[in-house]
C-alpha cells in the first residue's frame, strides 16, 4: 500500500533512555538517541533482537517510562500527556489480565476506563468479542483461556475505544501456527479498516508478510528505517540461470559482458548474475540454441539481512554511537533511512 505523503502519527526524535541499575552511580544507556516516524494507515514493524530496546521504546511511547532526553509524540501530542490515549490502543508482550474476570467482564472494565459511554458499552463489547472470535467464550473466566485466546482478548481490549493507532508488543510471541495466523489476519483487518499498526517483533517472517515499513534497532540504535522492499535489497537481487548445451564461447561472453558467475561444469551449468541482466542473458542463450532449465531469483531473506545488521552492530558498537542514528547506513546495500 502507498504511504506517500501520509501524516505522521508517531514521531520519535533523538530519544535517549538511561537506566541506573541498583543504587550505584553507574548508568546504563539503553536507547542511544533513536529517531523514526510512523505514518497513518501503515503497518510499521519495529524489528530487533532481544534486548535491542524495542520494548523500552514502546514503554516510552506509552508513557510507562520517561525518556532521559529527546522527544516522542503520538498524534501530535507529547507522550507524557493523557488525552491522546483516547485514540491509542496497546497490547503488551504476553499480556496478563485479571484471571478472576470473564472475557466479557474484562472488556467492560477497559471500556469504562476508556470512557466508552454507558449506553454503547454493551454493543461495543459484544462486537469486539465477535470480531476477535471470542463470542462464545465471553462468559468463561480468563484463567481458562489459552494463550491465543488471551492474545485475542488483549487485542480486543486495545480496540475497545475505537482507536486510530494500535501498538503491539510481540503479538505473535509464544503462539502456535494457527494462533499466529489468526493474529496476522486481525492485524491485516485493522489496516484494511484504516488503523495504523505499530508492531514490535523479532519474528521476521511476520515482518515480511505484514509490514509496509520497518525500523531495525540493534543495541539501542536504529540501523535502518524505510520500506520493507528496500530493506530486502530489491534492486540488487541476483538470479541463477541453469542451462545445458551451452558453448564455452557463450559462457565466456556471459562472464565478461554481463558479469555472470559460473558455477559447476559439464553438460549442465549454473550462471549467477544480477536480475537486471537476466533478460539479456536469456536472449543470448536461446539464440545460440542452449537449453534453459530454470531461472531462479535469489533474494537475501530478511533474516540474513537482519543478522548482518546485528553482527555489524556487535562488531562496531562504539563507532555507531558516535554517529547520529538517522544517518546510519543500513545493512548490505540498504540505506540507513529511506524517505519514501
Amino acid at each position, binding site marked *: 500500500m502507498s504511504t506517500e505523503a501520509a501524516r505522521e502519527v508517531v514521531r520519535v526524535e533523538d530519544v535517549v533512555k538511561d537506566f541506573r541499575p541498583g543504587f550505584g552511580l553507574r548508568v546504563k544507556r539503553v536507547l542511544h538517541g533513536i529517531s523514526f516516524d510512523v505514518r497513518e494507515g501503515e503497518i510499521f514493524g519495529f524489528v530487533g533482537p532481544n534486548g535491542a530496546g524495542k520494548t523500552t521504546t514502546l514503554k516510552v511511547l*506509552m508513557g510507562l517510562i520517561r525518556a532521559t532526553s529527546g522527544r516522542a509524540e503520538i498524534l501530535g501530542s507529547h507522550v507524557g500527556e493523557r488525552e491522546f490515549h483516547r485514540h491509542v490502543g496497546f497490547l503488551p508482550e504476553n499480556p496478563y489480565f*485479571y484471571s478472576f474476570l470473564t472475557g466479557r467482564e474484562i472488556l467492560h472494565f477497559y471500556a469504562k476506563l476508556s470512557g466508552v459511554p454507558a449506553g454503547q458499552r454493551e454493543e461495543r463489547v459484544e462486537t469486539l468479542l465477535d470480531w476477535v472470535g471470542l463470542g462464545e467464550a465471553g462468559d468463561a473466566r480468563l484463567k481458562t483461556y489459552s494463550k491465543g485466546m488471551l492474545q485475542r482478548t488483549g487485542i480486543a*481490549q486495545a480496540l475497545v475505544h475505537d482507536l486510530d493507532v494500535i501498538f503491539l508488543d510481540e503479538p505473535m510471541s509464544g503462539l502456535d501456527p494457527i494462533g499466529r495466523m489468526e493474529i496476522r489476519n486481525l492485524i491485516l483487518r485493522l489496516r484494511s479498516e484504516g488503523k495504523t499498526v505499530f508492531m514490535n517483533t523479532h519474528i521476521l517472517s511476520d515482518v515480511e508478510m505484514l509490514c509496509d515499513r520497518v525500523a531495525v534497532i540493534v543495541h539501542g540504535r536504529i540501523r535502518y528505517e524505510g520500506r520493507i522492499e528496500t530493506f530486502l535489497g530489491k534492486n540488487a537481487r541476483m538470479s541463477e540461470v541453469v542451462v545445458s548445451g551451452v558453448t564455452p564461447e557463450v559462457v565466456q561472453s556471459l562472464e565478461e559482458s554481463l558479469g555472470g558467475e559460473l558455477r559447476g561444469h559439464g553438460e549442465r551449468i549454473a550462471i549467477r548474475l544480477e536480475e537486471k541482466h537476466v533478460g539479456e542473458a536469456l536472449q543470448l542463450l536461446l539464440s545460440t540454441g542452449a537449453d534453459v532449465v530454470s531461472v531462479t531469483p535469489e533474494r537475501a531473506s530478511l533474516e540474513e539481512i537482519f543478522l548482518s545488521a546485528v553482527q555489524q552492530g556487535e562488531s562496531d558498537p562504539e563507532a555507531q554511537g558516535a554517529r547520529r542514528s538517522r544517518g546510519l547506513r543500513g545493512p548490505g546495500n540498504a540505506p540507513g533511512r529511506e524517505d519514501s
Partner: protein
Amino acid sequence: MILRIWTIGHNTIREAVRNKLLYTLLFFAIALIGTGVLVSTLSYVEGERILQDVGLAAIRLMSVGIAVFVGVGLIHGEVERRTIYTILSKPVSRVEFLLGKYVGLVLTTWMMLGVMAVAFAGVSLGYGAPLDGGHATAFLLIGMELLVMVAVATLFSAFTTPMLASLFTVGVYLLGHLSRNLRQLGDQADAEAVRPVVSFLFEVLPDLESFNVTLEAVHQLPISPDVVVTAIVYGLGYTVVLLVIASHLFSRRDFR
C-alpha cells in the same frame, strides 16, 4: 475521573476478596474475639470489659494487618503482572490509578472491619456485655485509623518493594502508637540535641493514639465530640498529605 477511580477501586475489591491472606487474617481476628470469652473467665471481676478489650485490640491489630499485607501486595502485583501496562495505556492517569487502588483497599478493609464488628457484637451480646454508642465511636475511629494506615501502605508501595513497604508500614504503625510517649521522652531528655529530633518525629509520624478510644468505649466513659471531630479531621488531613506524596512518587516511577 470519578468513574475511572471507582472502576479501578471496584476491581481492587473484587481482587482483594479473592486473597486467601485476607481470610486468614479475618479468621484469626474472629478467633481472637472469641478467645476474649476464655480470657475473661480468668478474672472474677470486669469479665465483660476484658472480653471487649481483647476483642477491640484484636480488631485493631488484624485490620491493620489486612491493610498492610493485602494492600502492599495488591499494588505491587499490578506492576509485577504488568496489568498496569494496559490500564495506563487507557486515558487513565497514574494518580487516578493510585487513588483507585487506595479507595478499593480502604473499602475492603472497612468491609472486613464491618464483619469483625458484627462478630464482636455477637460475642458481646452472647456474653451479656453492654453495647452502646461508645463502641460505635470506637469502630468509627478504627475506620479512620485504617484510612491513614492504608495511605501509609500506599505511599510505601508506590516506590519500593512489597517487603520493604510492609516493614516500613508496620514500623510507622508501631511508632505512630508510641509517638506521644516519644514526645514525653524527648521533653524529659537531658541532651538538648535530642529534643528537636524527637519533636520532628512527633510532627511527622501519625499520632495513631488519636484514634484509640477503646478504654472509654469498654469502660463506658463519655467520649467528647471534640475528640472525635479532631481525630476525623486529623485523619483526613494526614491521609490527603500522604496520598499527594504517594501520587508524586508514583508519577515519577519507571515501570521497567
